[in-house]
């Protein structure tokens, strides 16, 4: 079983070729063959094809892509396509690989998608730290203009399209689609209340479709092979392949493309090469840091698709799998994540701003050996009060780890509070000497 686990390189078939990054290398390997084909179709045919394929958003929420496109107003109002390349969900590093190794794959997918939804201008919003991705995209966009794949009257079809890159500036919340729109407008990246949804009112109040890098890259393959062929991968409700980012305490971390519903244990023990010598699996976060944690026993039977993970009380999210072995302290892991969410809350909503602050403070004080038994209940209570009450999902995303870590690894939390040290490590967390008031 696990030893024979192998990848299904569908989107990533040519990622090993350095030349796939350039226009020529991309064209020599099937690139820009689907674009001319698409431009001869009716836009609605493409939308229907994407609907029929069952493609769901790869950015986190798993919303059906064709259905989202269908929400756009049926008129000639200007509209935008915004590619979400902010990739901030801890554990996720697939979009970066896709942009660096195959920028044209994304660009071709975006031109086809733009034609389908009748959009003349698209942006790729890339997180500010991704210098190499931005360089690769800018170079590829320039090549695409030169070759006549972008600009006026593309390949004589009468369809005009411009594309540009926008650089973020370091804020996880800009990965949230309405936060991203605010940021692209040159404002603080604060999310906005939905409805109106971006498809009705987005960038500059115009209809805007926001899709993840991997979602848009997949469109071209659906066009090439058809909806039925795409559906051969995965399950009825979770169709297609997905790139999973595997990290943490694992022998062979990396990005792996597999069909949805691939067994998590084959990912860990097969593709991932298993645990380091002498170590045992303790816990797995299956879909980015916001996804509730699974115990080792749960991980053994989990399948990597939207429905199976939802049934286990967690989620597929961005497909970021973080593996934790038996030498690690769950209290320390949770405190690490709470620091992250506290840092990243944009502060607009009281439950999120105050709640992430409390979760950070309480977990830090437990780590320092100052925790009380009542703190464990308090963590659960604070987290519970953060759910379902805010403008965006960050508040829930911060609460979910608490609501899974604490009940599933309660003994570690209770031991830490009682003994003032970690059950696993036998010592208390030492506040590092490098900390100072220095602000950045």
């Amino acid at each position: 079983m696990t030893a024979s686990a192998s990848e299904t390189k569908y989107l990533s078939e040519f990622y090993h070729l350095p030349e796939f990054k350039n226009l020529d290398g991309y064209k020599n390997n099937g690139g820009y063959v689907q674009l001319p084909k698409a431009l001869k179709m009716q836009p609605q045919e493409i939308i229907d094809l994407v609907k029929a394929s069952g493609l769901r958003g790869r950015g986190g929420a798993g919303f059906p892509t064709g259905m989202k496109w269908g929400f756009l107003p049926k008129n000639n109002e200007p509209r935008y396509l915004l590619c979400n390349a902010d990739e901030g969900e801890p554990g996720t590093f697939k979009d970066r690989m896709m942009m660096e190794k195959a920028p044209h794959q994304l660009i071709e997918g975006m031109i086809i998608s733009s034609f389908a939804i009748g959009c003349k201008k698209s942006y790729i919003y890339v997180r500010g730290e991704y210098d190499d991705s931005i360089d690769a995209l800018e170079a590829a966009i320039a090549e695409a203009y030169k070759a006549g794949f972008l600009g006026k009257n593309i390949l004589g079809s009468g369809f005009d399209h411009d594309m540009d890159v926008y650089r973020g500036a370091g804020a996880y919340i800009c990965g949230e689609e309405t936060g991203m729109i605010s940021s692209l407008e040159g404002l603080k990246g604060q999310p906005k209340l939905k409805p109106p949804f971006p498809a009705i009112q987005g960038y500059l109040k115009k209809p805007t479709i926001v899709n993840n890098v991997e979602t848009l890259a997949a469109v071209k393959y659906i066009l090439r092979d058809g909806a039925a062929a795409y559906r051969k991968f995965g399950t009825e409700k979770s169709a297609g392949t997905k790139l999973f980012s595997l990290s943490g305490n694992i022998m062979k971390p990396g990005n792996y493309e597999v069909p949805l519903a691939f067994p998590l244990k084959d990912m860990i023990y097969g593709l991932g090469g298993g645990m380091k010598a002498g170590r045992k699996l303790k816990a797995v976060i299956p879909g980015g840091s916001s996804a509730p944690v699974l115990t080792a026993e749960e991980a053994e039977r989990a399948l990597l698709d939207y429905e199976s993970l939802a049934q286990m009380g967690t989620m597929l999210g961005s497909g970021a799998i973080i593996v934790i072995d038996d030498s690690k302290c769950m209290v320390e892991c949770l405190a690490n994540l709470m620091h992250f969410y506290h840092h990243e809350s944009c502060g607009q909503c009281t439950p999120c701003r105050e709640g992430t602050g409390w979760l950070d403070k309480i977990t830090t004080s437990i780590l320092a050996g100052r925790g009380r038994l009542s703190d464990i209940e308090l963590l659960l209570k604070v987290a519970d009060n953060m759910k379902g009450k805010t403008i965006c999902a960050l508040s829930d995303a911060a609460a979910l780890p608490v609501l899974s870590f604490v009940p599933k690894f309660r003994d570690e939390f209770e031991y830490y509070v009682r003994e003032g040290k970690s059950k696993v490590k036998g010592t208390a967390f030492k506040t590092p000497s490098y900390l100072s008031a220095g602000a950045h």
Partner: protein
Amino acid sequence: MFQLSNDAKQKVLTELKRYESKQSAVLPALYIGQKENKGHITPDVIRELSKVMEIPESQINEVFTFYTMYNKSEIGKNHIQICRTLSCMLNGSNELTEHICNELHVKLGEVSKDGNFTVTEAECLGSCGTAPMMQISKQDGSSRYYENLTNESAMNILRGLK
């Protein structure tokens, strides 16, 4: 007092025309201003940008304070940002940060005496499969990822930068 060079002003003007809305140029303009001022932004930089862009200082300032990649205080020639989030933490980022700070005799956020280094912690930089890692940014804004680090390899990289 700080002044934007003509070249920088031109670049800001180009950005103003690049997007559907003028305001969208604020983020790129802040990068241009930061590059001109040795890697950090001061009220003077914002005043200059405001003049060129004809956008109120308060609006630019609000954006500046929201995002972490605009530096609020002076940084060394090499800004070392060590990722601290879970996958890196599980692979020893705390120990790495401690080691680097001790070797360079700095605390987080400080500029080293020779002006060469500032060390800060960053939240997930999207390099989790090659943890632990650091990003080093120069005062001109160029930057690079260094991955799969050990205490030794990180120090070798830093010594090579001086």
